[in-house]
């Protein structure tokens, strides 16, 4: 009891503020009814990117709310998600939990809001969903390949018999040859899908980055999404060993190739280059598109940032890729390609042997 009494002597406004500022969770106190901000701790100011005097006294709609946010009921225990907008334009998904604070008379005088930043959790969730999707493709691919290859073998095998019966040089012979070639193309598509999906786990091992690039390019070349865009590979001599998950590394190249393709709606060239530089392996993907605007450059790796929202862009490709690169002890950077297009460079620690 003595201790509590001792403490009471020290508790005043300054003490409480100092105490709240040491808490790493963003906290704010708003007046009941008006929702006027009475107090906010340091973590809150960092979250919204504002100074204390810009926050105190503010009433809804608060300047840190993203467009479209509206006031909600503030009962004890209320919990809901919101999106905050920082002055630098970054959107931050958050979750709020409200707690009533009662005055001396027992009436609710204010509410304490405990605010959790969800950006990192969202990023991890998306990354997990993405790699989960890829693993599911791996499991499906072998089954699908078997289902397709059986009838495909029937087509190819039968056509081969008929080809032998038909007079060479005749129109029927030419047409049958086309059927045969087309069926062989299907065979290659299935093979590329199988190669791509062979690694169904996220298991890390020593892997040749040139194989990862080849398999990814092979698959992308065979999708209709790639029409009009030429992919050039310059994979250098020898193999480029790195330690990591082939599946996740493929995802980086898939994302970079998809971005490059989207930057080239009227066709163009995407160049993939692998180089060894000291203790690092660097892989660059550059395109002949319009490049990245200087004001966009600092933001392109942010989760949910996209210049293609209308076309269904999620703003996750590059942030997920960056996350994978960093999880592999590497980096992913953007720059301008020699011709003015965009260039992305992935650098990973090089392994000299398996």
């Amino acid at each position, binding site marked *: 009891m003595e201790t509590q009494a001792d403490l009471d002597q020290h508790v005043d406004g300054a003490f409480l503020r100092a105490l709240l500022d040491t808490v790493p969770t963003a906290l704010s106190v708003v007046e009941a009814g008006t929702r006027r901000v009475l107090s906010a701790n340091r973590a809150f100011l960092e979250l919204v990117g504002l100074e204390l005097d810009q926050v105190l006294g503010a009433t809804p709609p608060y300047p840190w709310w993203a467009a479209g946010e509206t006031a909600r009921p503030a009962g004890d225990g209320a919990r809901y998600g919101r999106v905050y907008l920082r002055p630098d334009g970054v959107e931050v998904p958050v979750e709020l939990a409200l707690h009533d604070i009662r005055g001396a008379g027992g009436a609710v005088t204010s509410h304490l809001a405990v605010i959790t930043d969800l950006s990192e959790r969202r990023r991890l969730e998306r990354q997990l969903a993405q790699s989960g999707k890829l693993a599911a493709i791996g499991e499906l691919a072998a089954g699908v*390949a078997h289902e397709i290859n059986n009838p495909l073998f029937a*087509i190819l095998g039968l056509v081969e018999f008929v080809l032998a019966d038909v007079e060479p040089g005749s129109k029927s012979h030419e047409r049958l040859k086309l059927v045969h070639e087309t069926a062989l193309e299907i065979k290659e598509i299935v093979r590329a899908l199988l190669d791509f999906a062979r690694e169904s786990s996220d298991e890390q091992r020593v892997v040749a980055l040139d194989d990862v690039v080849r398999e990814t390019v092979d698959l992308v070349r065979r999708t209709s999404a790639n029409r009009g865009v030429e992919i050039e590979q310059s994979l250098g001599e020898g193999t480029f060993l790195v330690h990591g998950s082939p599946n996740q590394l493929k995802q980086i190249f898939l994302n970079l190739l998809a971005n490059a393709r989207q930057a080239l709606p009227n066709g163009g060239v995407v160049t993939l280059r692998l180089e060894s530089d000291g203790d690092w392996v660097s892989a660059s993907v550059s395109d002949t598109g319009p490049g990245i605007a200087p004001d966009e450059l600092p933001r392109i790796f942010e989760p949910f940032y996209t210049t293609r929202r209308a076309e269904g862009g999620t703003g996750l490709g590059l942030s997920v890729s960056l996350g994978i690169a960093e999880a592999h002890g590497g980096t992913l950077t953007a720059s301008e390609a020699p011709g003015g297009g965009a260039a992305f460079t992935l650098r990973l620690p090089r392994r000299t042997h398996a």
Partner: protein
Amino acid sequence: MSRILVIDDEPVVRCLMVEILGAALHDVAGVDDVEQALALLELEEFDLVVCDIVMPGCSGLELLGAIHARRPSLPVVLVTGAGTYENLSQALARGAAGLVTKPFSHAELQAAAADAIRRAERSARELRER
């Protein structure tokens, strides 16, 4: 002329394989499941078995074991619709004489069959000479 037994549950695929191997002057019989295959193997002599790796009820790998338990020297070529490394290494580890991946050309199947028969004949000859 060699005698070959083809096992595949897909009628079109089975008939096609019988015809392709027949075109290479082999005497070929086709059955659509493992029980029929094992019954036929009890009754008749064959130089080679060609069998799909994925079939309802019993996989080609299991059949491989069953055949080798009865006729250790009879070569078995496995046919697969999904040529994964896993399939290949399992097939070889269990003593398959070959593995062909669908869709294959006539020549590929004929070559795989001829190769398996030739190697089986050679090891039989070597056994006799010892």
